[in-house]
């Protein structure tokens, strides 16, 4: 037991190290990159000038000069006037920020900075997107379990029968269509008049949802929500569906041939009991361990599905902040992504240690 605790402490200690490595790398890439925020400001200013003064400034597009003091101001605004390590450490919160009176303010103080675009704190921007992504992730994951576990079990018990063969074809077809493509195809089929105009073309809720909620029309709200969620949820389920079903099937097949199953039968236990109590419990181990990995999907959402179905969750936020070069948000999302994955890994180990008495981490 003692060994396990130190194992997990060691794992936890690795989080900050990992975290620093990754964020520093990304920070460096962003700082060194051409086309940063200054460049964008320059382009924006250029556009403004063009609209005002016609083609006047056209000739000097290359060397369009912003006044030096404007550049400096921008640099300070974007915190680009410092060297990369110092800037990074300010961002991290371990170096006094002179521009703000030499206070320590950064990630470890819980200050992720201000979004360029939303002019709101990054943390609250990100946190405000959590519920949407978590709703989808959680319901999607649950749905995956509800579909995959019984299906996998049934496939294992009917291995190489007609049922197994046909469901395999379906499962593998599901595997070969990425979730977002499935969403797209479903939107085409059931969101347009092509086959059956049944579901909306994206969006999280109808526009008047909040009004209806305020009006107390809860039943309508639930229906509207479900109506909007159907297609993206199919996409979410699709992405883990095949893997989990096959994992479940193979794992159960392995265990059904195990010696202890024979022992259980030799004790005269009923088939149901042997399969569902003895074999299934063992074959659930690899599946439960996957929960840790799924945490990432739960919180980080999916760029692809959120973009396709236009759901304003974490994924879409990340995508938009990338397009708009909203670096504080970008970094914030990356930080969350890394933290969640690292926690997910540890969670997997914890789950494994909890459900498999044999496992001893050292």
């Amino acid at each position, binding site marked *: 037991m003692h060994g396990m605790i130190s194992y997990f402490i060691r794992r936890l200690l*690795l989080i900050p*190290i*990992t975290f620093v*490595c*990754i964020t520093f790398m*990304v920070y460096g*890439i*962003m700082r060194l*990159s*051409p*086309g940063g925020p200054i460049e964008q400001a320059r382009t924006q200013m250029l556009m403004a000038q063009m609209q005002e003064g016609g083609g006047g400034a056209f000739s000097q597009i290359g060397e369009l000069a912003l006044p030096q003091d404007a550049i400096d101001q921008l640099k300070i605004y974007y915190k680009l006037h410092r060297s990369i390590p110092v800037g990074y450490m300010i961002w991290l919160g371990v170096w006094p920020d002179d521009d703000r009176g030499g206070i320590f303010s950064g990630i470890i103080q819980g200050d992720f900075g201000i979004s360029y675009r939303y002019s709101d704190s990054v943390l609250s921007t990100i946190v405000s997107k959590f519920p949407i992504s978590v709703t989808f992730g959680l319901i999607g994951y649950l749905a995956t379990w509800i579909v995959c576990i019984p299906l996998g079990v049934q496939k*294992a*018990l009917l*291995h*190489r029968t007609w049922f197994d063969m046909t469901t*395999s074809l379906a499962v*593998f*077809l599901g*595997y*070969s*269509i*990425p979730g*977002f*493509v499935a969403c*797209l*195809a479903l*939107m*085409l089929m059931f*969101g*347009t008049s*092509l086959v059956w105009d049944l579901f909306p*073309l994206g969006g999280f809720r109808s526009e008047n949802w909040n009004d209806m909620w305020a009006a107390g029309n809860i039943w309508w709200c639930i229906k509207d929500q479900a109506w909007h969620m159907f297609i993206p949820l199919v996409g979410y389920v699709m992405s883990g569906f095949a893997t989990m079903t096959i994992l479940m099937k*193979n794992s159960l*097949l*392995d265990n*059904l*041939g195990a010696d202890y*199953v*024979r022992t259980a*039968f030799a004790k005269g236990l009923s*088939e149901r009991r*042997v399969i569902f109590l003895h074999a299934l419990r063992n074959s659930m181990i690899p599946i439960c361990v996957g929960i840790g990995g799924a945490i*990432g999907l739960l919180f*980080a959402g999916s*760029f*692809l599905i959120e*973009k*396709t179905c236009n759901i304003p969750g974490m994924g879409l936020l*990340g*995508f938009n902040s*990338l*397009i708009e*070069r909203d670096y504080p948000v970008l970094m914030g*999302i*990356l930080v969350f*992504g*890394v933290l969640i*994955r*690292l926690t997910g*890994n540890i969670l997997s180990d914890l789950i494994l240690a909890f459900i498999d008495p044999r496992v001893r981490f050292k």
Partner: protein
Amino acid sequence: MTHILFKLLQLLVVLLLGFVLTTYVLPWFFRCFLRILGYPAEFSPVTQKRIRRFRAIRRGYWSFKLITVLFVTSLFLELIVSSKALMIRYEDRTAYPALCEWLNMAWPFGEVSSFNKKSDFGQIGESEVDYRQFAIYAAHPALMRKDLEKERTALTAEKEAYLAEHPTPGPDARRFEVRRYERAMKRFGKRGETLLALEKNLAVFEGGRAGCWMPVYPVGPGDLRYDLKSNPPNRPSLEEGVPLGTDMSGRDVVPLMLYGFRISLAFALVVAGLGYGFGILVGGVQGYYGGWVDIVTQRVVEIWGSIPFLFTIMIIASIVQPSFWILAVLMVVLTSWLGITYYVRAEFYREKAKDYVQAAIGSGVSDWRIITRHILPNALVPVVTFAPFGIVAYIGSLVSLDYLGFGLPPGTPSWGALLRQGLENVKFYPHLTIIPTVALASTLYTVVMIGEAVREAFDPKVFSRLR
């Protein structure tokens, strides 16, 4: 109708060639390669048994044949689907522009010019020959004559109409009127000259001294279909000669899909190949040497694995526009080498503990030989079983990146980019969604079938049930 049948026949021949190449020529090369590396020419019975088992799984085996034949054939796409002629002959001048183009693709270290000036081939202008036009006239000189006649009548009619409206200016005409008249006459004259030149050309074509051999589908991936009546995107239409329609900028979808197939599969193969190579190296070192090397590397792998790779690639791609190779290397570095290390490591640990490796160590065999000859062939088992699923994943990643707009440079034929257009036009142009979806799903499905068969062949799940 006969025209389409003829095209299909051509396609069949091409695929047959691809089949022969894939089934007979390439394996032979592969075997020679292995022999050069010093591995035995024959597979060991273990492997042979697995291959036999794989062949017995018909679905997977035929999927494998299909995909390899298609991919190998697609390596010659420049010769099959392109707007450049395979061969063009005009009097004593001959050129092979499509072949040159193919050589440029196949051998990227030198450049062969595939450019042919219009004026050299009896067309007017200095830009590249319009091969399709050339091919049509070469095949049907009568058509050219008819076009010429049409043009000539049109010119005469135009000239007469002009003259009727603007009679020859008299001496009292104003200066600008004279100028305009002269300019017009000059223009008519020039067109007349062109016609004359073309007429000379006609003799060449009619005399059979010009020839052009176009690829099976004479439209390249970057070519815009100006010959269509309506504005892009065009819906699929066989009558108009766009069987799969065009995309928003007017590019024909057929070459887009085919070249997209090649680039997706090539990308996945490169990523898988490089990634697995590196993964085997790392996993092998971990498993063979163990100890602290293993512990430290294991943590690095874990840390590296917790980077959200798609997002990171997107960030990098938003800064530097990645080429095929940069994107492939990014994929390798950020993700594809990771997964396989676990399996190779475990395999090395397992094999190293086995007595036959101990016996080799005990006989003084060198580490390198033990790793490459004894352990590696066994450690390749997880690699082979994972490769198809890896390829599915990497094709998916490339499509996703392209879809989000952070993949290959704009203009590259890509399924993902087409899907993005599909999303934008989901209401009115369903073919932009349907076609890439079907292509993607059927390709991935075929690869998955292979993967499933390989897994089954390598590790047949014994199903035994007690009651």
